[in-house]
């Protein structure tokens, strides 16, 4: 047992790769066979991650020496590095295809989510500007939340709330889209482009549209791939500064 402890202790990051790989494998299996793809594997994986954090204290599971490597893999440096890399899949030349409606829907989508996050956060007793900004960013996606929170120095528990908000959004978009599609006239490519820009959480948009009409998926994905980038750009800068100005 001691030998195993030493090996893992000295190779924490590698052990973290193994752990996350197993979580991802299990959650995609669970998504496929237990929920019949109704809940995206990503959302399940993040819920597993959040529940594992209960095993530790302030630093989640990485408080347990065996899992200290998770803090390295999930630390802000590698996280921001990987998030920036996703910009490669957002083809700037395609934003023209989305047109004015696509651009407007993206900006309004980020703005509405952020504003609602701040307002609901305020009504539930959060008054700190950094916390409110992070909660608002979490209402955009589960990526924008932690990226914003770390950048402006929010506390770990508020970042956890912002991630949880983003996950609820993904799950609700997945389940809710096919139910509400008719009412919001989501039955053509143009509406799907707008839908992707407004809702934004890519995994939720893609899964929700797939359950509504497979043919609409690429149109929704077209705009939603830009959403997280725009959120990461606006939330910790313009929106944060505006909030500060209002507050001071």
């Amino acid at each position, binding site marked *: 047992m001691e030998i195993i402890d030493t090996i893992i202790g000295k190779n924490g990051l590698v052990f973290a790769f193994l*752990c*996350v*790989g197993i979580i*991802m494998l299990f959650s995609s299996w669970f998504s496929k066979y237990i929920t019949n793809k109704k809940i995206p594997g990503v959302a399940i994986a*993040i819920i597993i*991650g*959040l529940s594992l*954090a209960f095993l530790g204290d*302030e630093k*989640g599971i*990485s408080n347990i020496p065996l899992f200290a490597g998770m*803090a390295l*893999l*999930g630390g802000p440096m*590698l*996280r*921001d590095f990987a998030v*920036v*890399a*996703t910009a*490669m899949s*957002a083809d*700037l030349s395609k934003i023209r295809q989305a047109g004015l409606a696509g651009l407007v*829907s993206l900006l309004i*989508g980020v703005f*509405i989510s952020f504003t609602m996050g701040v307002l*609901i*956060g305020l009504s*539930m007793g959060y008054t700190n500007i950094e916390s409110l900004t992070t909660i608002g960013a979490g*209402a955009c996606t589960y*990526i924008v939340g*932690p990226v914003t929170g770390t950048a402006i120095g929010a506390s770990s*528990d*508020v*970042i*956890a*709330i912002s*991630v949880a*908000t983003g*996950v*609820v*959004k993904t799950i*609700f978009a997945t389940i*809710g889209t096919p139910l*509400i599609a008719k009412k919001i*006239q989501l039955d053509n490519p*143009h*509406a799907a482009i*707008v*839908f992707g820009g*407004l809702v934004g959480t890519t995994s939720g948009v893609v899964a929700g549209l797939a359950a509504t009409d497979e043919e609409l998926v690429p149109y929704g994905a077209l705009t939603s791939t830009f959403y997280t*980038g725009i959120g*990461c*750009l*606006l*939330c*910790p*800068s*313009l929106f*944060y500064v505006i909030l500060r100005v209002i507050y001071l």
Partner: protein
Amino acid sequence: MKIYGVALLAACFLMGKLLGRLLGHLINIDSDIGGVGFAMFLLMTSSIYLRKKKWLVLETEKGIWFWSSMYIPIIVAMTSTLNVKAALSGGFLAIILGISATAVCMLMVPLISKIGREKSIDSPKK
């Protein structure tokens, strides 16, 4: 070589973070103001430029794609290291906010869809 792609990503990342910090410094806020967003924008524009110049070969791109595909696993690792016990009281907020923000955005679809639609679909009417 894949490392060229990783190096390009690293350059954009550091430049973005620098811009974010400088902007923060400029407006007297001691934090990173939109650094990740700037970095993403830099990566998008520089990859378009390099592709046009034919300098960005597939092998180079693969170095960036690898990190792009690692972001979900990294986010999962991050969630397992958050202070969830202290956040438990905010669980209700997360559920209310997640559902209401999504619902409001969904209901905006018919309204925003009106923009630019006449040109593509309804033009015979005019």
